[in-house]
């Protein structure tokens, strides 16, 4: 069990900077998600935490102890690789017992521990099989078994479900989360799938181009994205952006998009110039009386809800509305936004402006 703290960690590969000055803290027992698009430095960050890669600068603390110079074998952590990396020349039992053998544990004890882990993961029947012929799911379980058998301080998992097909992923995701809840060990989980991150994580770090964009609870990140990147990356369909020229002063409660006056949470910082209004599709309502209007260009039926794509004077947007409202393509409708849920971004920097609603959750770590 461990708290892990990343402080100003930076990693360069030659001239290329893979991770720029990351700072965040993973609390003891948390299921922590490292989320971001491909190539953003998630794996690199995780590998530095595990001791497989040396940071160019910065510090990593595990349980308060600086581990920068400690080799992976001394950090007492377990790593589940994306492709599992089961030792191909050993059978399942040997694979799982391998970390225990290195500690010089007694044969009998190894045997009971492996048995126990196999029971938890329901793989008792394949213990004596070679790993070569196993299905994806079984390999995944064996890899997990090898990780949990040692009862390490923390688990690091690099897209552990990436190699599984969609249906099975969901199932394994649930199993993983259940396993975590049962063992309570700190888990750091890398994924590029925002849904997976939202479903499984206690906390999420969103990275992009080696930069930590935001760090917080899934709900906070979803509701109050700190940057336009986060707003777009999380949620499906993603947040709508309406670009406009305008201004808002400290304490200001509305912005003007052309003719329409749109209420927003009270601002804590002012800005004038190019701004972007962010609104989630589910917070867009059809309201005949509204001055802000859009024309329907497409309708996507999803059962209980439908996604309506509209063209407005400040850009295209999508609305998620109940499917009992009949919608015709080409129809002109008034649009209203739920004032308490809106975000304002500085269009140039992409950063969210602080307001009464989002203050304190825009953490960059």
């Amino acid at each position, binding site marked *: 069990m461990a708290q892990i703290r990343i402080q100003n960690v930076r990693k360069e590969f030659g001239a290329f900077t893979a991770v720029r000055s990351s700072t965040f803290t993973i609390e003891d027992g948390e299921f922590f998600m490292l989320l971001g698009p491909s190539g953003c430095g998630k794996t690199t960050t995780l590998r530095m935490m595990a001791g497989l890669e040396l940071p160019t600068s910065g510090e990593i603390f595990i349980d308060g102890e600086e581990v920068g110079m400690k080799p992976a*074998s001394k950090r007492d952590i377990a790593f589940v690789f994306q*492709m599992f990396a089961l030792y191909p020349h050993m059978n399942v039992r040997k694979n799982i017992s391998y970390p225990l053998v290195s500690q010089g544990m007694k044969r009998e004890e190894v045997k009971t521990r492996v048995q126990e882990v196999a029971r938890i993961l329901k793989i008792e029947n394949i213990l004596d099989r070679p790993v070569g012929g196993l299905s994806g799911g079984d390999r995944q379980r064996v890899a997990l078994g090898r990780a949990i058998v040692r009862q390490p301080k923390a688990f690091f998992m690099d897209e552990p479900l990436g190699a599984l097909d969609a249906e099975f992923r969901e199932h394994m995701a649930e199993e993983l989360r259940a396993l975590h809840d049962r063992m309570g060990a700190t888990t750091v989980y890398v994924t590029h799938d925002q849904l997976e991150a939202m479903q499984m994580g206690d906390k999420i770090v969103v990275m992009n181009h080696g930069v930590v964009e935001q760090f917080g609870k899934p709900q906070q990140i979803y509701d109050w994205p700190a940057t336009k990147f986060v707003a777009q990356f999380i949620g499906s369909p993603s947040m709508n952006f309406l670009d406009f020229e305008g201004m808002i002063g400290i304490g200001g409660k509305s912005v003007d998009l052309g003719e329409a006056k749109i209420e927003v949470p009270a601002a804590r910082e002012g800005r004038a110039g190019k701004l972007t209004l962010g609104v989630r599709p589910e917070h867009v309502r059809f309201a005949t009386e509204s001055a802000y209007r859009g024309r329907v260009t497409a309708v996507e039926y999803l059962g209980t809800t439908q996604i309506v794509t509209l063209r407005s004077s400040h850009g295209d947007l999508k609305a998620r509305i109940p499917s009992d409202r009949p919608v015709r393509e080409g129809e002109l409708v008034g649009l209203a936004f739920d004032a308490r849920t809106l975000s304002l971004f500085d269009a140039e920097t992409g950063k969210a402006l602080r307001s009464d609603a989002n203050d304190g959750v825009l953490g960059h770590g």
Partner: protein
Amino acid sequence: MSSYSITEPSRRQKWFAGVLVVLYALITILPLVWIIGTSFKTPSDAIAYPPKTFFTPTVEGYVNVFTTRTRLTEEQLQAVGEPQTWYDRLVRKDGLVISGPSRFAERFTNSVIIGFGSTVLCIVLGTAAAYAFSRFKVPLKDDLLFFILSTRMMPPIAVAIPIFLMFRSLGLSDTHAGMILLYTAVNLSLSVWLLKGFIDEIPVEYEEAALIDGYTRFQAFYKVVLPQAATGIASTAIFCLIFAWNEYAFAVLLTSGNAQTAPPFIPTIIGVSGQDWPAVAAGATLFLVPVMVFTILLRKHLLRGITFGAVRK
């Protein structure tokens, strides 16, 4: 019309391929069969014309390759008395007695020591170098690799004279150590390159998993990389052994009394008592055995794909 599959060869294709393989096998195996056959002939059968396909086999050739014999006069033969052993009796037919062992066994042992010694050294050094080149940031890696390969860009024998002089002044001429070093030097570049290729193929995650499981880098190398490089090591070892085993020119040049290997020795059998082709053939046949056994022993490693896709899929 019958349906056919594009992946499965048709019956006719299979038949044709089979015939080709058998023909090729026959062509390559014929000289071998001939040598082995000759080794069991009598000297006169061996040079009979037209050649004898059917003959009464004898192990005279094998006896001759291991012994030296002298021709005695009738009185001398009487003095020696009745032949004691089966091989005494065999040579006595021709009025000869065995005067002592030949140097074949000694030369053969030299071949084993030098051949296997250089192979082991080549594999140990080659694996270590290949691992380092494959996994670590080695300064000037590409240049070094090219340099290593460039040692094979001309025939090794082209530098025979410098090596001869060098060996003489270092006292390595006609020593086992000298020959082992020489063959290792010649084979090492091949071994590094081949093994690097095989080690590159082994995903680095295996070692990382082992490092995280609490093993040192050396243990990870030893327990995880080596078993998976077995295929590569086996095939590299076979190449190295075959070269060292068959090498003739350096052996002639650099060895004579002490460390002479079998290849320069076998032709000298011809001169011992007339043209003793069966003895030469027997020497050649015996000479083939170790490489053949070694290859057959390692064959299962050559054929077994060891990874079975445990990383991917």
